[in-house]
């Protein structure tokens, strides 16, 4: 059932399509390649998870999708970067990005406190955003704001509109930000660690809301997180990132239950799950994260990988497709054979 849905989705046109994203940063006269070729397709109504430990380049990727990196130091290049299959964003300048952000591409961040201006009420900030992207009068904009808040489960909308950010809890602020982002009906929402600063019940509420936005409003959502439980909770597809590369991608359920890449497996074994009986003890991944800016000749995970051989040090594995083109893995020795 789920497979059918994703099949039709892959045939459908991607809302945002990206091929071979490279990103390098110049610092002190030296150029460091941080993102080393990423392919990404976001479809309407689908939640895609971008998973990895801190320092793997997942937030950089998210920022690059919105043109948020300082063009003086960061050089973003890609073979293909299309919005709605026709708008080429590769050459977009700051003015163009500013028009796209909010209206077509929206983003929410980890720390909801810093994303809201403390001296204006929620209402003032929401109306400003709505009126900037659509030419409606104040009353109409207010209706849109109220509807958007109600849609996000914030029923006490009058009080919220009159509140200042510090008067709301962290979970509420995050939901207000989502409501604000959704009020302009964007095609794509990028959520960068939206739940890591939140409690378990607020986290549950925010994740439910993101799923709701994808299913009921057809928005394409990219969930950037290090939390595999959050991925399992709402994502249709997952990309696992490490040291600026995608190591594995595929449908969430298949990837989480039968990981192909040793890194995905290691992440899963480090993540605790609640069971009714005593679960197996989590296993930390040996060593530490490969620094993003250091160039490696072979597979970046070699130093921490239990299956690594000489081949892995010498040669970087390509991302191979398999299982009816649904799953991809970049590993010389994947954990299971899969038909290519």
């Amino acid at each position, binding site marked *: 059932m789920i497979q059918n849905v994703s099949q039709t989705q892959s045939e459908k046109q991607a809302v945002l399509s990206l091929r071979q994203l490279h990103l390098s940063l110049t610092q002190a006269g030296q150029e460091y390649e941080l993102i080393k070729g990423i392919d990404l397709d976001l479809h309407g109504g689908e939640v895609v998870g971008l998973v990895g*430990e801190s320092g793997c380049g997942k937030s950089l990727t998210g920022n690059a999708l919105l043109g948020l990196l300082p063009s003086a130091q960061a050089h973003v290049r890609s073979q293909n970067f299309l919005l709605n299959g026709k708008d080429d964003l590769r050459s977009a300048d700051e003015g163009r990005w500013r028009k796209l952000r909010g209206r077509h591409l929206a983003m929410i961040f980890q720390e909801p406190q810093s994303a809201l201006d403390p001296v204006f009420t929620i209402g003032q900030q929401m109306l400003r955003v709505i009126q900037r992207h659509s030419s409606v009068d104040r009353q109409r904009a207010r209706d849109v704001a109220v509807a958007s808040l109600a849609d996000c*489960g914030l029923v006490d909308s009058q009080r919220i509109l009159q509140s200042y950010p510090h008067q709301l809890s962290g979970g509420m602020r995050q939901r207000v930000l989502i409501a604000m982002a959704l009020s302009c009906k964007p095609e794509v929402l990028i959520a960068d660690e939206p739940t890591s600063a939140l409690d378990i019940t607020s986290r549950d509420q925010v994740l439910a809301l993101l799923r709701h936005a994808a299913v009921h409003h057809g928005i394409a959502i990219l969930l950037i997180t290090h939390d595999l*439980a959050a991925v399992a909770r709402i994502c249709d597809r997952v990309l696992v990132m490490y040291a600026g590369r995608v190591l594995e991608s595929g449908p969430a359920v298949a990837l*989480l*239950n039968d990981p192909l890449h040793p890194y995905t497996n290691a992440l899963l074994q480090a*993540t605790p799950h609640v069971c009714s009986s005593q679960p197996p003890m*989590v296993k930390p*991944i040996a060593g530490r994260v490969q620094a993003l800016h250091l160039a490696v000749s072979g597979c970046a995970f070699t130093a921490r990988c239990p299956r690594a051989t000489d081949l892995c040090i010498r040669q970087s594995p390509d991302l191979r497709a398999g299982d009816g083109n649904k799953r991809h893995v970049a590993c010389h020795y994947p954990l299971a054979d899969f038909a290519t």
Partner: protein
Amino acid sequence: MSSTEPLLELRQLSVQHAVRSGGSTRLEAVRELSLSVFPGEIIAVVGESGCGKSSLARAMVGLVPASSGEIRIQGVPVQNLAGKARKNWHRQTQMLFQDPHSALSPRRTIADTLAEPLEIQEKVTAEQQKQQILAALSEVNLSSDILLRYPHQLSGGQKQRIALARALLCKPSLIIADEPLSALDVSEQARLLNLFSKLRSDKHIAFVLIAHDLAAVQQVADRVAVMYLGQLLELAPAARFFQGAAHPYSQALLKATQRNWQPGYWADPKEADEPVLKGEPPSALTPPSGCVFHTRCAQRLELCSEVVPGQHSLVQAASAAGAHQVLCHLYSTDKLPLHPSQQEKP
């Protein structure tokens, strides 16, 4: 674990903070909370932010004063501790904080930081000092080349483990860990959980682990305490808690953690756009009447908004460590009418 004498005992402990907001000026962060910590056990305190778990942790080590009630260390009320005994309390009860980045002094090398607890203890020679520091480092799986570094050169997980090594150098019998996991990556979380578990069995150190992630808690906890608005809603042995939490709030927390996980298998996201609990916890400045949780409770009875529920024991345990207590009208034996969900309970 099952020693009868608790290491630390809280009796009807309340902690208040002065705040200026509206008319009310006192915020009751912890309300008449009783809890015992036994040697060598890991007791997890779970709850949302603002439920008072950090205030509780700070009261346990004496960083904030109790406004009423009592803290007893091995049977002696802390206000009666003086001189050497008081120093001993501080040495024996160490604390780990949430933010590893501010846990270490930025201008001091790791060696300086680790030497500090030894300097103020009984006289030790430089050689003994070095041996103890190296031993503590290997205890937390770090090598000695880290000693000459400064905190900002380390990752969050390494800093948290250095903070743990510093605590270990005090030879504590109890470590209070206030959200030690939430700023760390999964792999570092796993490493720290393994360390806690190892220190409990090897050194018989007790932990109060303050956390909000039940999945991490289940890895190591012997007992689970659920806090909401300054009160202890449920206290149970971990095995009992994860098989069937009794309080509706605990049940919601559990469901939020495990909803997509069937043993050994990640399930498809189903009904994923409905949260397990709606709304926000009420402000601790104006706690609801009756049961503090009644405003969000799906199994609310009529009397919940008026009558404060009493503590009910669900199991006749031989020791205090085995007790399962819940603060909820659903488990009252003399209150009528019975709620249908009560029949399902074991």
